[in-house]
């Protein structure tokens, strides 16, 4: 029970910080001072206190969708280890539950968008669901590769020690997987070059347009859910990179935090250096991610590591 509370506590508190790091990095590259590091928290609280506006077309799905969606992402976080902290629930095959809970979250966001009957939101929903199909297969292939390398079927088994010897043996494979996961992270969390999280307008016709009609507490939950999803994908990448064991909680936490700041800065650099891609080019990002992970798979097979 205690581990449940610690874990959920971390997941509830830290994610918006990552948004702040990205924002600061982007501001640095733009030569600005930028919003404070805690801007994500301010936004969420500000939105939470606003008056809601609902469309008369909508049903309960519109109002409950963000809640179900964010709850599903948080539940997915339960099976993911954070830093050296074991996941409160772990079992062989929990990686599938992880991916499917994220899918559940997306499904309800898509339905909430369709519930408004707006063509803009329908458009966003359609695109979000389409890109998700392609990023999901990459996630599955990557997870299968990691399972093969670490001889473990659970996320905790993979990230808490299962990979520790792999960096020495098949380092290039892991680099390919990390790159592939990073591309998926950009796409799943609607970052530039796939989507622009800065605006809710029609210019960014994927994720952000899907939440066009949400307001107040629901929008706050959506913003938090976004940050949480980014945090979870970040966890995957950071714990892959720091997969060696130190057996010192303080040192591990320090490594992990610095890894996270690094990730935030990396995303910020990508966002500053690139423009948003045209919609039909977004697919190439996803194809690239999938091909990277196929290469990784082939290398493992050839190395006979299995």
């Amino acid at each position: 029970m205690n581990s449940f509370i610690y874990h959920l506590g971390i997941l509830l508190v830290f994610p918006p910080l990552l948004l702040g790091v990205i924002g600061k990095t982007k501001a640095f590259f733009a030569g600005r001072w930028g919003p404070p590091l805690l801007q994500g928290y301010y936004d969420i609280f500000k939105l939470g206190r606003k008056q809601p506006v609902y469309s008369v077309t909508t049903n309960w799905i519109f109002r409950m969708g963000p809640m179900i969606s964010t709850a599903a992402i948080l539940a997915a976080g339960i099976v993911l280890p954070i830093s050296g902290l074991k996941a409160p629930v772990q079992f062989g095959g929990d990686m599938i539950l992880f991916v499917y809970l994220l899918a559940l979250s997306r499904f309800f966001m898509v339905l909430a968008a369709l519930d408004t009957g707006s063509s803009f939101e329908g458009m966003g929903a359609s695109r979000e669901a389409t890109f998700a199909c392609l990023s999901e297969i990459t996630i599955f292939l990557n997870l299968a590769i990691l399972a093969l390398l670490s001889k473990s079927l659970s996320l905790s088994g993979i990230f808490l020690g299962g990979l520790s010897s792999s960096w020495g043996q098949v380092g290039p494979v892991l680099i390919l997987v990390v790159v592939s996961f990073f591309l998926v992270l950009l796409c799943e969390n609607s970052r530039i070059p796939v989507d622009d999280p800065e605006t809710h307008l029609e210019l960014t016709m994927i994720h952000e347009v899907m939440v066009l009609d949400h307001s107040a507490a629901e929008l706050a939950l959506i913003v938090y859910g976004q940050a949480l999803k980014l945090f979870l994908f970040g966890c995957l990448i950071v714990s892959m990179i720091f997969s060696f064991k130190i057996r010192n909680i303080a040192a591990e936490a320090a490594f992990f935090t610095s890894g996270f700041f690094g990730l935030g800065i990396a995303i910020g650099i990508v966002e500053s250096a690139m423009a948003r891609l045209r919609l039909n080019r977004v697919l190439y990002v996803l194809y690239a991610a999938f091909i990277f992970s196929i290469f990784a798979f082939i290398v493992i097979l050839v190395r006979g590591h299995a």
Partner: protein
Amino acid sequence: MTLILYCLLILAVSIPLMLALARFKKISAHVYLGSLVVACALGLFSASGVLSRGIAPVDFRLAGTIPLGEFYIGMDALSAFFLLLFFILSLAAGIYGYGYMRDYKGGRNLPAHFSLCHLLMIVIILVVVAKNAVLFLAAWELMTLASYFLITFYNEHERVRKAGYVFLIATHTGTFCLLGMFLLMGVHAGSMDFDRMAMAPFPLGMAAGIFVLAFLGFGVKAGFIPLHVWLPHAHPEAPTHVSALLSGVVIKIGIYGLIRIMSIVKDFPLWCGIVLLATGIVSGVAGVLYALGQHEIKKLLAYHSIENIGIITLGLGIGMIGRYYHQDTVSYIGYAAALLHTFNHAVFKGLLFLSAGTVIRSTHTGEMDHMGGLLKWLPWTGHLFLIGSLSICGLPLFNGFISEWLVFRSLLEGVFHLDMCGIIFSTAAIVALGLIGGLAALCFAKAFGTVFLGHNRSEHEHHHNMEGDFVLVAPVAMLAALCLWVGLFPQEMVSYAFQGVKSMEGAAVPVVFRQAILGPLLSVTKVLFAGIAIFLFFALLRRIFLGACRVTWTETWGCGHAYTSSKMQYTASSFARPVLKIFRSVVLFRIKSEIPKRYFPAAGQLNSGVKDISEYFVFRPVFYAVKKVSRGLKWIQGGRTQSYILYILFLLVVLLIWKLR
């Protein structure tokens, strides 16, 4: 066993009773309902008894009843598992059918229709419990005929007659393969009894031959791509409760047949497993892609049946591969996954078809692009359809997730325990299953979103609301409850599936494997309940935040457009377009449009759709060729009885010479 016999007896007696009372429509319908409920209750009791105790009852045998064969039936756990799903779905679809047909005003003979429903039930039960190949084939053939007459209920429409015709030809071609297969097995084993066949060792070469014939024969029924061409025609044209039975049970009988053969022959070459796995991948991915291209709701559901058959086949395929490598973990979990998904698919597909039927009856159309916003108008049906959608997409909380998780688990075990070839194929299957999951979610977001959410797209008023009818809602709600029950407390059904595997393999499933599955499933339940608790926490939080606020209700924001119309919404076709464009070369996705030009635009139009490759490029050319050849041979079948008798005489003479030689 006696219970099943009573159940058969009740069904058999009620058929002539219903026909005799045909003039009193109400009484005859009540006879139908009563006999259905009693028979299903008996059947459910008997099947679940076998599954929970794990002991098969004594076989029943009437010697010498059929030439070469006999009336020999028995119920092991495998049969009981299929009977369980059959009775659950028959009960729901039967009650629904009673309500659905109640205000039918056409000229067809309803008691005859209900009698055919009962006949279909009898022969399906016989197929599942038959322990003799001749009895199996006879019941199989009757099943085809009964389904044919049920499909062609609305035979005043030409496309219904055509669909029935395609169904008849396809399944008869399949039966032809089965005849050959059983002859091969019977001659080798020296008996047509399944028990005796199971004792005979089959050499690998013969096993391969049997596999090919079984794959073709049962695959046609099950709807493996590319043998599926009849399915998307036949399922949508039948009355809804029949569609539910066809998609939920009849195609599963194809799977049952395949599993039965696998339990008799046991050892197959490696490529057989690979063929099954590859078929699973192709059927799953192509099935859901074709479904995405459909505009008609029942046709969409029919293609989804193909997708789910693909998932079941993935489980069977990895199980067979695991068996070849003697990796029991892989094979046991794979088979259990296939069985459980068979059950789950029957439940949620029945649920979806029946609720789609209510929608179609209420709106008098099946075109999704003409619907919209029905959740407010048909709240029960809408929410039940939502539960069905969540289940079929394999999303957590509902039963689809449990069986898809099992398939994933068996594939991951395959990645661990098999050699290079096995790893490649199981990884490919993992990726394919991931893709299937994503596409299915997209497809049902499309179906539920366009039908039940947003504004209504058609101008004319709805005809009548069918929802007030209790018998149309209650059976569907029962199926939905079952989806949720299996999704949250899967232990019972998983152990039933393991009982089925036990009778398939002939050996008890080791406790280790059971624990390897049941333990994680308990953890899944834990996470899901934690998720529900988190949701409630968020709901509370929202209540607190919103407590003091004034809520404003207004129109959906139209980005500055003052007068938005319901026609401006995203339609089902536009929702599916991006993904179909990606896969356009696989599913032959084409858009034809006539864009209005000039200053005073004339009417424009836009057409989008997918074309079934196997239908247009495989079966059509083949059947045209067959037609051409048979035209040439027409003179043999001149229609004169005398010449037919002459043929018989010739044949007898030839046989006599052959025998005397």
